[in-house]
């Protein structure tokens, strides 16, 4: 699998470290309550199809949000996590 890095272009999967679903970008407020934190930390849509998840590109030290298909491994789009306003990952 190759993942296009917004900085470096098409790169091998081995250059990336997987973090998990893009849910991690929507961190709730500290006082948001048990359900919100459970939702953020544990519960997942876990789709069989198009998903968004977070990958760290080690060579350029960038966090990349990848839109891809979990059934075909096709990568649809990528962007820097920092491009998303309020991101904290």
């Amino acid at each position, binding site marked *: 699998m190759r993942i296009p890095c917004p900085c470096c272009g098409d790169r091998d999967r081995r250059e990336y470290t997987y973090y998990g679903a893009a849910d991690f970008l929507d961190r709730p407020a500290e006082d948001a309550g048990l359900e919100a934190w459970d*939702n953020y930390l544990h519960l997942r849509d876990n789709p069989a199809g198009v998903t968004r998840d977070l990958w760290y590109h080690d060579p350029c030290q960038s966090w990349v949000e990848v839109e891809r298909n*979990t*059934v075909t491994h096709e990568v649809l789009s990528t962007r820097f996590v920092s491009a998303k306003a309020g991101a904290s990952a």
Partner: protein
Amino acid sequence: MTYSGFRVFTQGLTGNKGWTKAWRQPDPKTEYDIVIIGGGGHGLSTAYYLAKNHGLKNIAVLEKGYLGGGNVGRNTTIVRANYFLQGNSEFYSHSLKLWEGLESELNYNVMHSQRGLINLFHSDGQRDAFARRGNAMLAQGDDAELLDREGVRKILPYLDYDQARFPIYGGLYHRRGGSARHDAVAWGFARGADRRGVDLIQNCEVTGIDVANGKVTGVQTTRGPIRAKKVAMVAAGRSSQVAAMAGMRLPIESHILQAFVTEGLKPVIDHVISFGMGHFYISQSDKGGLVFGGDLDFYASYAARGNLPMVEHVMEAGMTLMPMIGRAKVLRSWGGIMDMSPDGSPIIDKTHIDGLFVNCGWNYGGFKAVPASGWCLAHLMATGEPHPVAAKFRLDRFRTGRNIMDEEGTGSQHNLH
């Protein structure tokens, strides 16, 4: 038809014309007391024990493909009870005891072979960890022996004892561990359930779960609606999709775990062996193929096939441990879709919907759990109370933080298992 050696003999003399089908092919009725979604190992064993242990009759298993066509046929068939934590250890201990009587219980040859499992360790720290694990196994009433380097060499002379990078310090020997024939386990439970009146309905995909006033009332399927008083979701590998039909989000991420098999060879590996310094475990099937696997590919996937980096890692680890397998030709590889839970332990529980039950999150432990998983889910569905050995497999443990069972000690978060 009851199977026996005598019947094999007489059938052999009469042209094998007298064998009957192992189970019926019924059409779905419009209503059942209990509907089980998923005709894999766990779903079939649940149906079997509902009928056998609790005397229930009006049960259907709905399978979208064919019986045993999912993860029960996509694993490395290892059966063991070497867990450390309370919650897991009593459950897998119970499961191994069920395995030990399974063939006479089911009147079916599941080829359960207790050939012994040896977990190798390669440092003082690993030796301490395995000694502690072995003590936990003994405390649970299972078997464990700590072998030193010479003890391992006596049993496994073909490992590479000369290499300096990952020296073999010893191994934890679990004599009752071993393997079984994966398909036969599904078939044995299917036949047993069918003989007790369970309807096994194949090519019947559940497309909706009906809920009214907080209570489950039935399911919608590709073969029409079916009313039911109780419904169990036993679809590891597709748990999140099934639960989404009931409006639930599960604490599950689906990952690929790859496995490989070589051409058939003469008997050479008599045990199940795991390498402590890389992700590699191996056994030899009765057909002669070396069956081995590694770790997850480590990204969410439903592709049922993996990527090359993990293939490379597994082959390297295998060559490091036992160079003698280097000339064997790999015939094929496959990927199982693993329900990964945040703490690496499974879930057998009720849901917030009355009459709806969930069995999921089997991580790396699904195959060996098949008998006990069905036993415990059947107990929960029939009595309303969790079975004592599965009482800690709670769905809400991540929310409450109580009884997290993190065997690896890495933390209860999705990306850590």
